């Protein structure tokens, strides 16, 4: 069990955190309201834009209601010629025409302002959320990042953030617009003629209901479809990344079948979406036209009876056409609310997290004097598996200039020790000190400037070689970068590249082998002048001769610091001043290479094993 449990808790994402995130998809009512309130408050940080957006909405909607009335008047004016005289009617028509032109243009201007300002409120909110998210991600501790899949974090920072930021423009403003149109417009219709007004508005409840229900249904199927499409893209991505395995096993048909299954299951849902959408748009349009037909019939009879004018009837019909679009958008509004509450809830849950490893209030900077690193009865368990002790009672002292070697089987806790020194995690018992200062009592920044870890997995940034090497100190002068890369035995390679240190790494740039990546990581930490330098099994892919050259090069500087060396290969740490042999989270043996061999214990056993497979020559 131990090997798996260790690998799972240490570096690998556990599925649990992801599941927890996924469950927030159905948010409680109160959380939804709180989330929307919070997004709205964020919109309030650009108050002028909000005011402009709302005022423009008010004007745009009001002007839009006026247009049908004007057109109705125009129709009536043509009918009054017989009574009022042609001259007067013509003048009235001119007035109406100018009003129509002016009102339409003004409505257009206000609609533009409404859309622009509400969009910009959304973009400003998005900007602020993005900055907060980025900042938070950078500071959340390793324990958090271990527990969550990076893909889920990216989804959170892109899609969920998008869903939350749009609330103002797609939710609030649209709601105001609809309220004015239906409220004021409806009042106007009903005040002219109660029954005809009610008939004209009769499609509103059905369309509002149907579009809301279908949008919610579409959202539900969208979430499922998204999951299936994720599976489909995983099938594709794995197939392409593992195409050699596929071909090695002649498994092309197997893979095609796998793809087909995933594809069909997504297609089924895509069909379902089409059906939901089609059914709702078709019935909504039908209900609108039925209302229109009834207005035409009943209104027509009223015109015949002389209760209303032809112009009024025309105004009713025109207003219905105008109202049709926003009422259909009611569904989008409902969707926006649903989306904001789930997306926002997830996003804010993350933004509200406090990093488990953080500065104590008023913590001073680390002050390195002697450069002595001390572990005192340190015990540790990973946040994801609190019951399982990974380290127990680890005590050792390393003085400036010393090299400490750590060795032991997988899951013995070597890497954990390496990660505790820069305080990537906090110890659960005992303490670690540097010159007597508990690591938890000094600022993280000052600590990590003094502790450099060369880790197993090297992350390369898609930028130039020099930017990658100088990652920890972007102000480092060129000479220093070359020195570091020279010591890491990387200079020769970089010097041979067409653009030397300005060659971009990665996509379309130089690709580095595993050994070169490790050397890059070593160069990165040599740029810093740390008091403690930790090599976490970071020379495994480098051949023995190059490794020896690297250690020769850095030995010159190692008098000024503590070096901690984690390795599987005895060759690597044979020359350490002291070697700690770990097993099941405890130090079981310690001493120099010679002392440990003489002890005839675990170390000796390891030595014999490796001698057989590698031919270690001591």
């Amino acid at each position, binding site marked *: 069990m131990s*090997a*798996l449990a260790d*690998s799972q808790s240490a570096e690998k994402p556990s599925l649990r955190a992801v599941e927890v995130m996924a469950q927030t998809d159905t948010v409680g009512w109160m959380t939804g309201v709180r989330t929307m309130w919070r997004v709205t408050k964020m919109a309030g940080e650009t108050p002028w834009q909000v005011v402009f957006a709302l005022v423009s909405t008010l004007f745009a909607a009001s002007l839009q209601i006026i247009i049908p009335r004007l*057109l109705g008047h*125009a129709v009536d004016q043509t009918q009054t010629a017989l009574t009022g005289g042609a001259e007067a009617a*013509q003048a009235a028509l001119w007035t109406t*025409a100018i009003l129509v032109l002016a009102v*339409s*243009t003004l*409505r*257009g201007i206000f609609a533009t302002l409404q*859309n622009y300002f509400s*969009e910009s409120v959304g973009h400003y909110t*998005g900007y602020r959320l993005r900055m907060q*998210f980025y900042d938070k991600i950078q500071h959340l*501790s*390793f324990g958090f990042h271990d527990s969550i899949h*990076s893909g889920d974090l990216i989804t959170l920072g892109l899609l969920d953030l998008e869903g939350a930021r749009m609330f103002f423009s797609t939710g609030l403003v649209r709601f105001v617009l609809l309220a004015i149109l239906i409220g004021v417009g409806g009042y106007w219709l009903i005040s002219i003629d109660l029954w005809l007004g009610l008939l004209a508005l009769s499609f509103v409840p059905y369309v509002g209901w149907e579009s809301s229900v279908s949008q919610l249904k579409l959202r539900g199927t969208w979430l499922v479809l998204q999951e299936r499409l994720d599976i489909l893209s995983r099938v594709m*991505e*794995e*197939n392409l990344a593992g195409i050699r*395995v596929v*071909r*090695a*096993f*002649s*498994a*092309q*048909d197997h893979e*095609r079948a796998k*793809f087909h299954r995933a594809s069909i299951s997504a297609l089924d849902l895509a*069909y379902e979406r*089409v059906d939901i959408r089609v059914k709702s*748009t078709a019935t909504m349009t039908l209900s609108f*036209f039925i209302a*229109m*037909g009834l207005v035409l*019939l009943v209104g*027509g009879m009223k015109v015949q009876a002389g209760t209303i004018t032809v112009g009024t009837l*025309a105004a009713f019909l*025109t207003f219905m056409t105008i109202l049709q679009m926003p009422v259909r958008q009611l569904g989008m509004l409902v969707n926006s609310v649903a989306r904001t509450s789930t997306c926002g809830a997830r996003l804010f849950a993350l933004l509200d997290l406090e990093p488990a490893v953080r500065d104590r209030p008023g913590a001073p900077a680390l002050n390195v004097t002697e450069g002595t690193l001390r572990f005192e009865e340190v015990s540790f368990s990973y946040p994801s598996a609190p019951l399982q002790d990974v380290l127990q009672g680890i005590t050792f002292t390393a003085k400036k200039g010393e090299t400490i070697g750590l060795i032991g*089987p*997988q899951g013995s806790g070597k890497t954990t020790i390496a990660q505790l020194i820069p305080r990537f995690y906090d110890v659960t018992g005992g303490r670690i000190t540097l010159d007597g200062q508990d690591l938890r009592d000094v600022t993280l920044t000052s600590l990590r400037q003094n502790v450099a870890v060369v*880790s197993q997995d090297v992350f390369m*940034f*898609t930028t*130039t070689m020099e*930017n990658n090497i*100088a990652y*920890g100190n*972007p102000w480092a002068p060129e000479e220093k970068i070359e020195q570091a890369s020279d010591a890491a035995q990387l200079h020769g390679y970089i010097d041979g590249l067409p653009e030397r240190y300005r060659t971009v790494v990665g996509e379309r740039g130089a690709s580095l082998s*595993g050994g070169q990546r490790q050397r890059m990581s070593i160069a990165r930490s040599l740029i810093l002048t740390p008091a403690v330098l930790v090599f976490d099994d970071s020379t*495994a*892919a480098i*051949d*023995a*001769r190059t490794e020896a050259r690297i250690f020769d090069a850095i030995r010159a500087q190692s008098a000024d610091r503590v070096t901690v060396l984690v390795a*599987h290969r005895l060759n690597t740490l044979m020359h350490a001043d002291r070697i700690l042999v770990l097993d099941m989270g405890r130090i079981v043996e310690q001493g120099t290479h010679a002392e440990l061999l003489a002890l005839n214990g675990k170390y000796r056993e390891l030595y014999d*094993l*490796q001698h057989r497979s590698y031919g270690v020559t001591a």
Partner: protein
Amino acid sequence: MSSAGETETERNDIREDGRRPPRAVVGSHRIKEEMFGRAFDARIMSRIWGFVRPYRRQFLISVVAVLIFTLTQLAIPLVIRSAIDDGLLAADGRSALIRATILFAVIILINFAASYVQERVVGRVAENVLFDIREAMFSHLQSVSQSFMDKTEVGRLMSRLQGDVNSMQEFLETSVISVGDLVLLFGIVLCMLWLNWELGLLTLSILPVLFIVRLIWLPKARVVFIEAHEANSVTSGALAEAIHGVRTVQGMTRQTVNLQLYDDKATTNLNAQLRSAMYAQVLVPIVDGLTGLAMAMVVVVGGQMVLNQTLDVGVMVAFLFFIQRFFDPIRSLTMQYSVMQRAMASGQRLTEVLDVPVSVTDPAGAMALAPDAPGSVEFRNVSFRYEPTQPVLRNVSFQVAPGETVALVGPTGSGKSSVMSLIHRFYDVQDGAVLVGGVDVRQVTQESLGQQIAMVLQEPFLFTGTVMENIRYNKAAATDAEVMDAARAVGAHDRIMRLPQGYDTKLTERGANLSMGQRQLLSFARALVADAKVLVLDEATSSIDSYTEQQIQKALVTLLRGRTGLVIAHRLATIRNADRIMVLQAGQLIEQGTHDELLAAEGRYAQLYKASHASFDDVD
């Protein structure tokens, strides 16, 4: 290649005591891809048509439905007109009004049916075509040349399979609708001219203005939209980098610098988005103003005509209705233009993938490699190169007898991996021949060849799925018991049983929830289940603790038992266990023999041996 110079000037405001700006960027510079192509490309259209063809009946139905739908749209204002003129203003109007209402009811029912049929059929056909294109591409990629796959990044292919395919869907869905839009536009024009040609011409005079305005606007707006799109993906890229590299960022305390750099990107993005929002909105007042103008003209001129009794008032109302519908097709048609261009650009990229040649094919009438063929491997004067100017293997000849284990050693780039790939015919040789079971690999079906050869690659690539599914992989015939036997044989069974759900434990991405050693053992078990006569194995170089190492060595012996083995070996133990060692250098076979023989010969092998005990690979 992004220049460092450009990125340095990006932030010349952070300086520490007036020194030069930091060597720092966040996010990578994306490789730009053409977002828009020509609006119409006959060659690409015919390729797309090839995918629509199987659904041509549905396609035809939907076009007919769109036409009917459009006609009903046109008819509605006409019915209203007749209701007003014949029903309301005529002497005996009641029956005319009822007739008009009945006609209206019939028309809206037809409208309902036509819109239902059209949208449903179009929607389904678009989805089908989309999935078909994706499946065709995926299927094609299974058989394209391995060199293409080596050269092409997975991310780029994925964006073909997803982004480009999706933009085709948008195109398909809107293309039928735009047929309707065109018909609607012409229909409105005809109806207006038919109702009253003078008033019609007058109203239509604003059309050219609108077209010109949109034509001026479109290219400018597009630049702004593309900028916004780019700025957004750059910002997203920077975020993704921060997430993936968070451990390095924290270890090197780069948070403050990075946040400032990110702020630059996010601000640029904000401004680009605001600009694009402005451009998206700028046409609204113009369109509204023009609509107002058209309506004003109808009010004044039409009203005058009604006063003069040369126009029925119903016609005037119908005009007002038509004007309001007038702009929708124009708006969606100009949008459709961009969609077309995007679709052509995507279509171009899709056809590029579909046209990647399949270089390794079964010859006509290829025979299956007999299941009882001997498990021998032979290279006969093989020369091979990926690029015309760079020979990888030069005149390599060797034979491996059935049951023999041969270790291949040599520095990186010596051609070991190519030897391995050629046995399975991932590529075809330029000269000479590769023989398996005494038959040239080019003469038998790839399928049957694959059944004779099992491969273990250096990276133990595992798929998402259960442990059981991974070990069985494509050998569907293998029973659970056989899978477990294989796992037992390589010493993985006990470890698997200790997993939370044993063999049913789901593996996460690439088997991330297993240790490297466990992943290797699983990949051994997978090869064992495949049960082939020839085993080709590229030993992993990654660091594994000595105990697991031991287990892997034991498993290797089990795996090779009774099989012909070709092993690219890095570990001394593996090399020593081999019956024969072949040393490759610069594409040539320079030495072969047993470990002791080669040491005694004091050649390249002896040199390599002394230089490195860990890996024979990374020796310069």
